[in-house]
């Protein structure tokens, strides 16, 4: 199958919206964020939608007039963290909210330094794998039903994989939905051409 016809191609996966669970929603989450003075953490393991939620939150707050500055950290750029931090703080005003993606890449002292400097800002919202950094705003969880919902959104009913396939994928990738979707991409890449059957 052509990469552009693959229903699990990156641009389609990236356009998925975050799905709240356990009756949570935007309204309650924003109320919690306000209650903790815009200093909070989105917590959860890898590949469960933390960054997706973080980006959607940023878009909402920016729309409401809050200026946001991002600091994006990952395994590849963690060595450049001091320079990235310097650059991020360089032109921030007290009105800015600092959003840190991948805060777990920061060491203890660097995190303490950021936390202190961010005290002068309007807010600090991070996403990280473990709790305890800042008050937990939300805990992102993974489940087979979440994987199933995502597959339902990406595929028409007649092409959806059976539940057993999803369960086995979920187990193989220890609940990392992003990796499950990449595996589904590979499965579809080897499938015969189904152009026209998958929504673009």
């Amino acid at each position, binding site marked *: *199958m*052509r*990469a*552009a*016809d*693959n229903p699990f*191609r*990156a*641009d389609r996966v990236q356009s998925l919206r975050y799905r709240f669970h356990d009756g949570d929603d935007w309204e309650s989450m924003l109320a919690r964020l306000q209650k903790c003075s815009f200093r909070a953490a989105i917590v959860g393991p890898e590949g469960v939608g933390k960054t997706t939620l973080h980006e959607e939150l940023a878009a909402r707050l920016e729309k409401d007039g809050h200026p946001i500055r991002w600091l994006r950290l990952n395994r590849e750029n963690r060595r450049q963290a001091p320079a990235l931090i310097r650059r991020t703080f360089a032109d921030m005003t007290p009105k800015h909210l600092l959003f840190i993606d991948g805060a777990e890449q920061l060491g203890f002292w660097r995190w303490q330094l950021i936390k202190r400097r961010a005290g002068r800002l309007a807010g600090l919202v991070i996403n990280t794998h473990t709790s305890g950094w800042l008050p937990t705003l939300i805990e992102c969880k993974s489940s087979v039903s979440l994987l199933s919902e995502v597959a339902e959104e990406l595929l028409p009913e007649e092409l959806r994989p059976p539940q057993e396939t999803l369960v086995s994928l979920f187990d193989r990738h220890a609940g990392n939905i992003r990796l499950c979707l*990449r595996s589904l*991409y*590979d499965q579809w*890449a*080897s499938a015969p051409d189904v152009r026209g059957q998958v929504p673009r």
Partner: protein
Amino acid sequence: MNRLEIEFPRERNTFEPGEEIDLTVSWELEEAPERIELRLVWNTSGKGTTDLEIVQAVPFEFPSPFETRQTRMTLPGSPYSFSGKLITLQWGLELIAFPSEESTRREIVIAPSGTEVRLKSIKQTEQVI
């Protein structure tokens, strides 16, 4: 309701690299746009990050809300449209109204003999050799 359209010569959407094409664009918008732009772009799509490049942009100055205009565009010599299992490179023409950013896109193929280059897996290539 707003409408933006791009028409190709003789409804062709496959072209040779470097070919010169005449295009007709039209729009019907509820509010007069500040400007309209026709863009020739390519983007990648597939398993990895999407790349996008605007190769040419033709501005249509002082547009009225309802209009049809013609333009000529020389297509670039590369990159060719290609597709494999991991990545597809697609060419497209986009007509965008500003400031609303209402737009339409039509995909085209730019490749020798007008056929998208199909990338084969290493296994398939070895079989051919």
